[in-house]
């Protein structure tokens, strides 16, 4: 009889193997996510003056922030932006994905529709944002058109440099991030399930809300993660389209970093003198 390899050694390696397999990803997450997060938390307790941060343990960064009505107002405004954008991109994304998934039959046309959605992304975000200005401005296309056909006597001011403009651009920029996961979820729905619903006498609207909608929950979840992170972290749109009329936490943080030169505590700190 031949000697088998030591079972205990074998068993130990087998038990180690899963850990070895997740080790690379765990390492990447540790170095690039956990350490920076920990640093932010640590620095947020440090003191600072105009030139440098001073290692210390102070809590006024937090007390100032939590005690400032401006901060709370800005946060609430950001949450509002997020919820409104989420609702609109969700509804719009569902409609677009539904159309492409269930009404466009040929694969070629599906690809063309998707290209139409994605190709604008080859240009810079900011360019696409700015290009709304000539449309929405006081003397812009929409205002002159509305006045020409006599719908309004005065140019509408809320179109540009307003919360309306910010939300409009958010929707324009981020709807695709909803369409893609929703389309994915929809294309995985077996056609015979739709036919079974038709067989059971469901109307097109009932099919949409009672069959397709519940089966695309994961798509909504993934799309929402995209939209929420993008809107919460945004500052460019608010600055360019809000015209100083709107604020968001992203913009607040950028302002603290760039204008006021208060680098490390910015994310955790309360408002600076400029606010």
């Amino acid at each position, binding site marked *: 009889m031949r000697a088998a390899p030591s079972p205990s050694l074998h068993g130990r390696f087998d038990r180690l193997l899963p850990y070895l397999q997740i080790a690379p990803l765990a390492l990447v997450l540790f170095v690039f996510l956990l350490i920076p997060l920990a640093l932010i938390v640590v620095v947020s307790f440090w003191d600072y003056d105009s030139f440098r941060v001073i290692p210390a343990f102070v809590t006024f960064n937090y007390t100032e922030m939590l005690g400032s009505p401006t901060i709370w107002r800005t946060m609430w405004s950001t949450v509002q932006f997020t919820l409104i954008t989420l609702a609109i991109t969700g509804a719009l994304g569902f409609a677009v994905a539904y159309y492409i998934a269930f009404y466009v039959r040929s694969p070629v046309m599906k690809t063309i529709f998707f290209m139409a959605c994605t190709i604008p992304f080859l240009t810079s975000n900011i360019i696409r944002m700015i290009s709304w200005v000539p449309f929405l401005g006081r003397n812009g296309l929409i205002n002159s058109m509305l006045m020409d056909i006599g719908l309004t006597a005065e140019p509408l001011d809320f179109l540009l440099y307003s919360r309306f403009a910010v939300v409009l651009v958010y929707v324009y920029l981020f709807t695709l991030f909803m369409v893609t996961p929703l389309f994915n979820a929809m294309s995985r729905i*077996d056609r*015979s399930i739709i*036919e079974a619903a*038709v*067989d*059971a006498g469901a*109307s097109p609207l*009932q099919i949409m809300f*009672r069959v397709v909608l519940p089966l695309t929950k994961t798509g909504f979840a993934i799309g929402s993660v995209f939209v929420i992170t993008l809107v919460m972290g945004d500052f460019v749109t608010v600055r360019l389209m809000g015209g100083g009329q709107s604020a968001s936490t992203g913009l607040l943080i950028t302002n603290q970093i760039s204008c006021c030169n208060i680098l490390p505590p910015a994310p955790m700190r309360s408002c600076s003198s400029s606010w």
Partner: protein
Amino acid sequence: MPNKDVELVSLTKRFGASTAVNAIDLQIAEASYCCLLGPSGCGKSTTLRMIAGHEDASSGDILVQGRQVTHQPPSQRGTAMMFQSYALFPHLDARDNVAFSLRMRGIGKAERNRKAQELLELVEMQDYLSRRPHELSGGQQQRVALARALVNEPSVLLLDEPLSALDPFLRIRMREELKRFQRDLGITFIHVTHSQDEALALGDQVVVMQSGEIRQSGTAREVFETPANEFVARFIGGHNILVSDRGPVSVRADHLRLAPGAAPVPAEARALTGTVGAVEYQGSRVRVTVAEDAADRRHVAELEDRAFFAAPYALGAQVQLSWMPADEHPLAAAGG
């Protein structure tokens, strides 16, 4: 045929330039089990889907219980369909799956739950009311699908290859149950299959299709014992196509006799000689394939196991195949 549950009149389906179903006429008697049988691509599924209303007919008419339904939506035809992969709603449990169409019609919760429970009891799934489809086995999913199809009390149930997803044991059990349900409910089942066994076992009426046309329609025994043409004889299986002085004939494999090559031809019998090409043991029977000497054709004789093993034939042995003229069944020309 006194009362017909389903009648197809010159029903045609064209997809672009190709014709999937070519002007078929078919009458299906009240409360009968009808099997549409044929190879893949023969148009049997398309025919079923047209009856269900999931495919528009290019021309022709569909009548259900004498009522013209050709352009009615699926839910108003008095038919219900059971899909090949069952197509249960993944996000609903068994009860809600069955109750789905009641919910669509706006029937109250208590009423639809009562009805769903009643149907799930009928298919013996009352213990699985709140299971989702992925928590059920294939056979259980099929029962739920059956209950769902029956919830609107259809007069015709359409089954698209209902047994093909099941393993062989379960398939034979479900086959018996389908037949029992059909008898107990007293409604018509139209069952699409590519399996001859299934069609012969279940069908009161067996409809053999090929290339979008009906090649033969009759009782299971009629189709098996008197195939109308060469295609049906070959497709239904268990037949040999032989040439006699009457032209092409079919002779059942179990009616062929096998003898050593030099044996005298029995009185009145017809015979040919050949070599044994394959021997397959099948339990109660042995299938012997014989390559004919005079032509490039192979014939199959099915012998009772005892008879075969009393005088077995080896591969390559010279043998004589013989049959009685009374066992010949004349065939129409191919395609007729």
